């Protein structure tokens, strides 16, 4: 199946929230909340934003691992 750009955007927003400066957390949270709200509204889903986050967690973990691998490779000189 094709990767969903909307899911990628939610993962990226979650990653940004986790890794941003302390003073940016509130703003990043609002961006993530808005993406979750849009995803649920488009599908007229009755699931809550937290349920959607939880449903995406396994995939997010792999997304984050991929991001970290890139970071580790950069830090070790592009291995």
């Amino acid at each position, binding site marked *: 199946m094709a*990767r*969903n750009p909307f899911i990628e955007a939610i993962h990226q927003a979650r990653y940004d929230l*986790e890794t941003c400066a302390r003073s940016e*957390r*509130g703003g990043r949270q609002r961006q993530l909340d808005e993406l979750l709200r849009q995803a649920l509204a488009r599908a007229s889903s009755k699931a809550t934003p937290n349920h959607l986050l939880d*449903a995406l*967690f396994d995939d997010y973990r792999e997304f984050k691992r991929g991001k*970290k691998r890139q970071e580790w490779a950069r830090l070790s000189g592009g291995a």
Partner: protein
Amino acid sequence: MQSAQSDRGWGPAAQVILGPDPQLVLYGEAVVWFHKVELFRHEEEQRMYRQTPAPEDLALHKELVLRLIEDGEHLGRLIDRHGFLSNAEGITANDLKSTVDNLRADYRGWHEPMPAAERDLILREVFDGTKPVH
């Protein structure tokens, strides 16, 4: 928020329990808490992402993230009551609460995973079958 007038009425008790400047004390505690979260994230990366976590890693991760959530919630309640000192770094009470929410979501993901059937149902409903692939 408690007024300075009522604090004065309680004299040394208020000073000892709340400190001479509760907002300043809370700001200091919040900075320490954020630092703990960053330390936790660093170790989490090493133990939970760079390798397959062992059962002991999962157990300690659970204990640490729960402690950070509890401490963050406690700080949030005190900040609601006393306010948060305006600071050069620009950290607000919302930033602290968002960090707690983020930790809660990670706690659920790692330690209270959604059953696969429920997960698949939600993902199908919301994303119409375009499955995440990583």
